[in-house]
């Protein structure tokens, strides 16, 4: 059995798991690219997420933020079909329609650390591949940490 992390990308490709309707019917979740948001001098963050033609996958499908806070997100649908986005945000989730060849924006506020799913909640876009993750790095504020000696982590 070949399952080491090093050849994961090759194995996904070999098994047909890097595109829709080859191995799976849709696109297996979390098999897309990983990207990082850029941080501005004022601490806000910026990133772009696209939907490439016929890939049914957010690009990146895993977006990594250096810390919690405000993210300005550009969303581009280069696909030849209409999709949308339901995005995590403190206050209320954000929704946007993304018709074919469209570009939109979302401003999100997220806590860190932890990760959040976002998706295209139309038809079964979510199951067919258009479910992605936003990962927020970092620690909770010092005042929220337990008063105890440093403890081991996994």
């Amino acid at each position: 059995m070949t399952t080491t992390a090093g050849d994961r990308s090759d194995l996904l490709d070999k098994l047909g798991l890097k595109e829709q309707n080859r191995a799976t019917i849709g696109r297996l979740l979390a098999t897309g690219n990983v990207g990082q948001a850029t941080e501005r001098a004022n601490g806000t963050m910026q990133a772009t997420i696209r939907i490439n033609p016929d890939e049914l996958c957010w690009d990146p499908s895993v977006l990594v933020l250096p810390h919690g806070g405000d993210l300005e997100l550009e969303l581009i649908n280069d696909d030849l079909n209409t999709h949308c986005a339901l995005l995590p945000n403190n206050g209320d989730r954000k929704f946007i329609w993304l018709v074919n060849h469209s570009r939109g924006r979302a401003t999100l506020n997220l806590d860190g650390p932890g990760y959040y799913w976002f998706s295209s909640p139309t038809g079964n876009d979510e199951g067919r591949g258009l479910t992605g993750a936003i990962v927020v790095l970092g620690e909770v504020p010092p005042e929220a940490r337990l008063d105890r000696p440093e403890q081991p982590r996994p």
Partner: protein
Amino acid sequence: MTVEYVDAGEAVNQATLNYKTPGAEVAPPVVADVTYERIRNAASEPHNWLTYYGTYNGQRFSPLDQINTENVKHLRPAWIFQAGTTGMIAGASTYSFEAAPIVVDGVMFVAGWDGWVWALDAKTGVEIWRYKHAIPYDVSLCCGNVNRGVAVAQGKVFFVTANAHVIALDATNGKRVWDKTYGDVRAGESATCAPLVVKDMVIVGSSGGEFGVRGHLDAFDVESGEHRWRCYMVPKPGEPGSETWPADGEAWARGGANCWLTGTFDPETNLLYWGTGNPAPDFDGEVREGDNLYTDSIVAVDADSGQIQWHYQCTPHDLWDYDSIAECILFESKGRKLLGHFDKNGYFFVVDRTNGELVQITPFVDRITWGAITRDGQVTAKVYPEKEGDPVHFYPGPAGAKEWTHAAYSPRTELFYVPVQDTGATATRRRREFKESIPYWGAGVQVDIDDMAGSISAFDADGEEKWRYRNDLPMCASVLATGGDLVFAGKPSGEFVALDASTGEQLWQFQCGSGHHSSPTTFSVDGKQYVAVPVGWGGWAEGFLPGMLGAGHGSALIAFALPEESS
């Protein structure tokens, strides 16, 4: 040729896609003048349910009597609020609707799972506004994606999130006023309790007792969110109570004692009465020799200073996961200021709430095999996970003879009404190394899926059982007592029943379509009494009723009322 993109614009709040009549997204300012004095005197305005238990004393009793033993048979749904769920949420298989709806002058405020808070028209069930906090998918949750409700005061709605924030919202529009982090999700902390507003403070406790954290209670300023005090429920070395932990090592630092449920308050003693959770690791006592204060205790905390004034430990050196987080019901009897507490360990404790002195102890469930407690409070452990790999069966199971869901007390009948779970479990000790954020149980545990029973049982303050309403399944939802001499209780199988408070006779029932694991409340609007119950099975079902793990989830809030001709 380059084709310009279509401008999709800016993403909008999802709530704007839930049509409302223009202006209907703003609630009247009913919370603006909800003060400490009003909450303290909540019993004088029974049309409202102003605080988690209805009143500071935790009795879950309303004097409302429009719905009574004579006409309750006509009770029917007035409205249903359905929240549902979209997208991938934390605990997608364990979310549950567990809140106690708060009502202020015709507006209901209720928290759901996964960071939801709604303001509803209490007369129609129509959503006024919603707040949705983004909850990390990977937050550590021992017992499901759940929340027990909100608090209100001075124009704000307060609630906690699964990633251990306490948040104040503007009660008119649901916008965030302040937001404070009070727990460490990387350490396995979370939050599930309904806040309690006392004076000018919001009091909240931490969750995470299954992850080896150090439980605490925190107070924040109502207006600014400024942190006032923190009370740790496991002492550091050298502090009072530290002698009940091993002198060497760091067992205390992982000791548990989380305050994951709401406490009660007596303005005359100025004491908060808070139950604390299990020690960690739950079932492996060898790594934490001693009584392990203040785990599994009723703790009296000075409301102003956050200092512990006295404690009563219900299960010293717990080896069965017998949290004492259950409510501390304040009542008076024979001229004494007392506190009643139904513990997971199967015993009903009554103590003097001025000093913690034991008044009486009585078992309230038929099967107790873990050990015994004598009338004078002496505890003897009998059956517990002791040898590595050796399965041990005991009653009650780790969800307890009563889980977190609440008993009620009627000053009219002077009876306590307790939801009882008579279920056992098998635990096999399996020692593991401690690492932050990884469950720290020290055992493999399987709760029985057969040979179980439940009841709503009525006890007087002396511990004498007056009646018992039997059920084939354990009773896993909070009880509500009313001035109509009714006791309302929800079943895991979906029925919501009304019992005669004097006899236990069932007078009415309605099948709600999903199991009950919440806290019903009652209120009135324009002279009409309603009984509201969140319905949505889930949570730690593998702990309190694994025989119903396959039951459907729900996400409804149902308000019942009498038809016009019957009220």
